[in-house]
C-alpha cells in the first residue's frame, strides 16, 4: 500500500487547496481579492512542503524494486494495478526534481498572476497523477492516469482566463482527447488479442498470440503511437502544443513542456517495449511510419521555432522538435537508440525547464515576451542569461553539456540499426535540426550580451533568489550530467538490456 502514498498525498493536499479556494469564491461571491502576504506564505509553505515530502516518498518507493499493489478492479480482469520498475524510478526521479524546483520558483512568479490557491492545488494534483502514471503497472491504469493528467493539467492553460487561453485550453483538450481515444482503440484491440495488458519488460506477445491477427494488432499499435504521440507533440497531432504551452503561466509552461510531454513518451515506451515488444514491430510498416513521422516533426519543429518571434512560443516549437528526437531514438529499436532516447528524455526535461524558467523571469521582471525586445538583457540579469546560455548549449548538443551525450547515442543508435536509408537520413536530420536550434537559441544569447549598437539598454534590477536558484540548479544539472554521465548511462543501459 506504500506505493499509493506518493500518489494520493499530493492529490489530497491539492484537493484541500482547491476546496479552500472554492469555498472562498462562494463566500466572496466572486469578487476576486488578492490573498494577503501572510496567507500566501502559508500556501507556499504548504505546497512546497507537500511537494518535497511526496517527492521523497515517490523516490523512496521507486527504489523499492518489484513493489506492486492492486487498488481495485474495474472489472474482474481489469485491475487498477501499480508496479515499480527501473523505468518508473527514472521517470519519477526527474519529474520530482523538476516539480520541486519549479514549485519553489512559482512561489515568487505566481505573485503577478491571480488565484494562487487554485494554481498550487492543481500543481500538486498533477504531480500526484504523474506519479500514478509512472507507477502504473498495466495499460488500463496507465490510460486512467493519462486521461486524468490531461484534465488536471488543463487548468494550467486556462489559468489567466483570457479568451486566448480559453481557446488554447480547448484545443489542448480536444487534441489530447483525440490522442487518448486513438490510444483507447489500441487498448481495446490489445485487450482482445494480447495475452495480457500487464507491463512486462520485452513485451507480452508470443508468436501464438498474434498468429493471424498481426495486421489489426499493427494498426492498433500505430494508433497508439499517434495517439500517445499527441501528448509528445508528434506530427500530425502536434498543433495544440505551440498554442497551449505558451499561454500558461511560465512555471506551468515549464512543467507542461518538460514533463507532461514526456508522459506521452512514457506511454509509448510502455506500449512498444512493455506490451508489444520491439521484435514485434521491428521491420514492419509501423516502424517506418513512426520513424518518418518523428523525423518530420524534428525538422518541422525546429524550422517553425526558427521563425517564431514570441519567446515562449519559440520554446514550445523547440519542444515539438526535441521530443521527437526521443521518439526517433525509440523508433530505431536498438539498444543504443533506446539509451539515447531515455537520456534525451531526462536531459531535455532539465534543459527545457530551465529555458522556460528564463522566459518566465523575463516576463516577470521586464514584461518582455518577444525575442527582439531582449536586446542587452544580459547586462542587468547576467545570471539568468548565463544559465540560459548553458541550457541552450545543452539543447544544441555542444560538449561538454549533457545534450551532446544524448544526441551522440541517438545518432549512434540510428547508424547501428538495420533500417535502410533511415540509418543516414535520421542522423542527418538530427544534425540539421541542431543547427536550426543553434540559430534560434543563440540569437537570444548574442543579442542579450552584445546588443546592437544604438539600442537603449534598460536596467530591470536583479531577479529574486527563489527564481534564479532553481534555474541555476537546472543549468548545473545540464552541465554536470554532461561531464559525469556514467552513473545515469549505466542505469539506463540496465533498463535497455532487459528489453531487447
Amino acid at each position, binding site marked *: 500500500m506504500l506505493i499509493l502514498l506518493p500518489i494520493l498525498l499530493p492529490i489530497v493536499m491539492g484537493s484541500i487547496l482547491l476546496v479552500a479556494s472554492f469555498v472562498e469564491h462562494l463566500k466572496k461571491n466572486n469578487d476576486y481579492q488578492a490573498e494577503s502576504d501572510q496567507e500566501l506564505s502559508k500556501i507556499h509553505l504548504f505546497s512546497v512542503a507537500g511537494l518535497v515530502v511526496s517527492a521523497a516518498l515517490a523516490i523512496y518507493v521507486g527504489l523499492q524494486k518489484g513493489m506492486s499493489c492492486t487498488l481495485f*478492479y*474495474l472489472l474482474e480482469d481489469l485491475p487498477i494495478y501499480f508496479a515499480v520498475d527501473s523505468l518508473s524510478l527514472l521517470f519519477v526521479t526527474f519529474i520530482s526534481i523538476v516539480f520541486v524546483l519549479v514549485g519553489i520558483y512559482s512561489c515568487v512568479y505566481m505573485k503577478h498572476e491571480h488565484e494562487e490557491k487554485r494554481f498550487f492545488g492543481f500543481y500538486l494534483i498533477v504531480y500526484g497523477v504523474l506519479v500514478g502514471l509512472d507507477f502504473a503497472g498495466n495499460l488500463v491504469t496507465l490510460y486512467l492516469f493519462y*486521461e486524468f493528467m490531461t484534465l488536471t493539467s488543463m487548468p494550467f492553460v486556462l489559468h489567466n482566463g483570457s479568451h486566448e487561453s480559453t481557446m488554447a485550453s480547448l484545443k489542448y483538450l480536444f487534441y489530447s*482527447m483525440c490522442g487518448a481515444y486513438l490510444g483507447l482503440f489500441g487498448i481495446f484491440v490489445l*485487450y482482445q488479442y494480447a495475452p495480457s495488458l500487464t507491463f512486462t519488460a520485452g513485451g507480452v506477445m508470443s508468436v501464438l498470440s498474434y498468429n493471424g491477427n498481426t495486421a489489426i494488432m499493427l494498426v492498433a499499435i500505430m494508433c497508439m503511437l499517434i495517439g500517445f504521440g499527441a501528448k509528445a507533440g508528434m506530427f500530425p497531432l502536434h498543433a495544440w502544443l505551440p498554442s497551449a504551452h505558451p499561454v500558461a503561466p511560465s512555471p506551468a509552461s515549464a512543467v507542461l513542456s518538460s514533463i507532461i510531454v514526456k508522459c506521452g513518451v512514457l506511454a509509448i515506451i510502455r506500449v512498444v517495449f512493455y506490451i508489444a515488444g520491439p521484435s514485434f514491430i521491428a521491420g514492419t510498416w509501423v516502424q517506418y511510419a513512426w520513424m518518418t513521422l518523428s523525423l518530420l516533426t524534428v525538422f518541422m519543429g525546429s524550422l517553425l521555432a526558427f521563425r517564431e518571434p514570441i519567446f515562449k512560443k519559440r520554446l514550445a516549437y523547440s519542444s515539438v522538435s526535441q521530443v521527437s528526437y526521443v521518439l526517433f531514438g525509440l523508433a530505431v529499436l536498438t539498444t543504443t537508440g533506446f539509451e539515447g532516447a531515455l537520456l534525451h528524455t531526462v536531459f531535455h526535461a532539465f534543459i527545457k525547464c530551465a529555458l522556460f524558467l528564463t522566459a518566465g523571469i523575463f516576463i516577470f521582471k521586464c514584461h518582455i515576451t518577444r525575442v527582439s525586445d531582449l536586446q542587452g538583457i544580459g547586462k542587468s540579469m547576467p545570471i539568468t542569461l548565463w544559465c540560459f546560455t548553458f541550457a541552450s548549449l545543452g539543447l544544441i548538443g555542444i560538449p561538454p553539456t549533457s545534450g551532446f551525450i544524448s544526441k551522440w547515442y541517438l545518432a549512434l543508435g540510428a547508424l547501428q540499426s538495420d533500417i535502410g536509408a533511415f540509418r543516414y537520413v535520421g542522423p542527418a536530420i538530427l544534425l540539421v535540426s541542431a543547427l536550426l536550434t543553434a540559430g534560434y537559441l543563440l540569437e537570444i544569447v548574442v543579442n542579450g550580451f552584445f546588443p546592437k549598437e544604438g539600442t537603449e539598454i534598460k536596467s530591470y534590477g536583479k531577479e529574486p533568489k527563489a527564481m534564479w536558484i532553481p534555474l541555476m540548479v537546472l543549468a548545473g544539472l545540464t552541465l554536470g550530467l554532461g561531464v559525469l554521465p556514467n552513473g545515469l548511462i549505466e542505469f539506463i543501459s540496465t533498463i535497455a538490456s532487459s528489453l531487447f
Partner: protein
Amino acid sequence: MSEMIMPIVVLLPIVFGLTIPFVPLKSKKAKMFYVEGIVLVTSILAILMLLNQPTAEFTLFRFTDYLNVSFRLDGVGSVFVGICALLWPLATLYAFEYMEHEEHQPTFFMFYTITFGVSLGIALSQDILSMYVFYELLTMVTLPLIIHSLSREAIHATRKYLYYSLGGAAFAFIGVIFILVYGDTANFTAGGVLDLVALADKKELLTLVFFLCFCGFSVKTAMFPFCEWLPTAGVAPTPVTALLHAVAVVKAGAFACIRVTYYCFGPELVKGTWAQTVLMCLIIFTIVYGCSRAIKETHIKRRLAWSTVSNLSYILFGVILMTPLGLVGALCHMCFHAVMKITSFFCAGAIMHKSHTNYVHELDGMGRKMPFTFIVYTISGLALMGVPGMCGFMSKWALADAALTDGSPLAIAGVVALLISALLTAIYMMTVTVRAFFPGKDFDYSKLDGVKDPTWMMLLPFGLFVIAMIVFGVNAQPFVDFFTNIAMALM
C-alpha cells in the same frame, strides 16, 4: 401470491395518478407530498418486487382466449424496472422545483405519474401483445407532457412526435402480427419463439418483417432516419425531457428492440443476414450523426437531445451485434446512460430555470454563479466522454469488447464510431464548461446578477447521481455479472 405485486405497481401510479387533479388538498405542499408519496410507494413496491423475483405470471385481462395482457418479471425486465424505479422519485422531486412557476401543474403531475405506471407495464409485459399495448399507451400519455406549454412550438413538436411514434408503431405492429401467427407462443422466450426448421421456407419474409419491426420500435430510440422528433420534443419542460426523452420513453424503445431481437425473432434468424448489416450501418451512422448535430446545435437542451440520439444508438449497436456480450454492453449502457444523461439534462434544466437562458453562448460566466450545477454538469460530461473511473467508460468498454470479440469489419467500424463519438462528446460538453467558468478577462458579471444554484430539491438528485456515476464506474462488476447471467440464458 407474490405475483399480485406486478399489477399493483403498474396500476397504482395510473389509478392514483388520475386522482391528482381532483384530490381536495388545499396547500401546495400537501399536493407535493401526495404526488411524491404515490411515486415513492410505487418505487418501493417495485424494488421489493425485484428483490422477490416472482416467477409466476399474472393475467390482467383477456381479449380472446389466445390474446391477453399479462405480466411476468424476467432479467431484462428487471433492469428496466430498476432504472425507472430508482430515477422516478428523484425526477419528481426535481420537477417540483422546476415546475413551480408553470401553469397546469396538476395535469402535468397526473400524466407524469401515469407514465411511470405505463413504463413499468412495458417492462413487465409477458408477451409481445401486452408490450405493444403499453407501448402505444406510452405514446398517448406522454403527448400532454410535450404539449404542456401550449405554445406553437410545443404543438408542432407534439404533432411531430405523434406522427413519428404512430408510424413506428404501425411498422412494429406488422412484427407483432407475424410473431402471433408464426410463433410457437406469444410469450417472450429467450432465444426467440420461431421454429426455424419448420419455417425454413419463410426465412426471407421473416427477416424482412424483423427489419420492419426493429425499425418501427427504433423510432422511439431515435435511430437515423427516425431521429428528428427527439430534439424537437426538447420544448417540453425539462423534467419531461430529462426523464422521458433520456430515460423512460427512449429506453422503452431500446427495450422493445431487445425484446424483439432476442426474445421474439431470435438472434439465430437474423444473424449474418442483410437485415443485420443494414441496421448496423444505420446505427453506426446514427452514433456519429447524433454527435455531429449536437456540436452544431446551440440550444442547450436540443444539444443534449442530439447527444441522446447518439448514445441510444450505442445501446442498439450492442443489441444488433446479436451476441451475449453485445447484450451485456447494451444493458450496461442502458443503465449507465440513464444516470449520466438525466444528470446533464437536470443541470441544463436548473440553468434554464434559474437564469432563463436557452442557448449555449448565453452561458458564459454562469459557472461562477452556479458552481455546483456546472461542476455536476462537467462530471456528467466526463462520464459521457468515457473518462475511466466513470460509468461511461465501463459501458464503452463492454460494447467495444463485444464488437471486437465479434471481429467483423462492420463491428470494428462500430468501435471506431464509438471513439469518434466520444471525441465529439468531449467537444460539445466541455466547450460549455470551459466557457461557463472562463468567459474571458473583461467579462461583465453584473449581467448575471441574481443567478444562483438551485435549492436542495434539485441538488439532492445531483449529488446522488454523481455518487452513482462514480460508484458504477469503479465497481461495475456486479452489473456486468448480472447482465451476463441474463445474456447467458439466451444461448
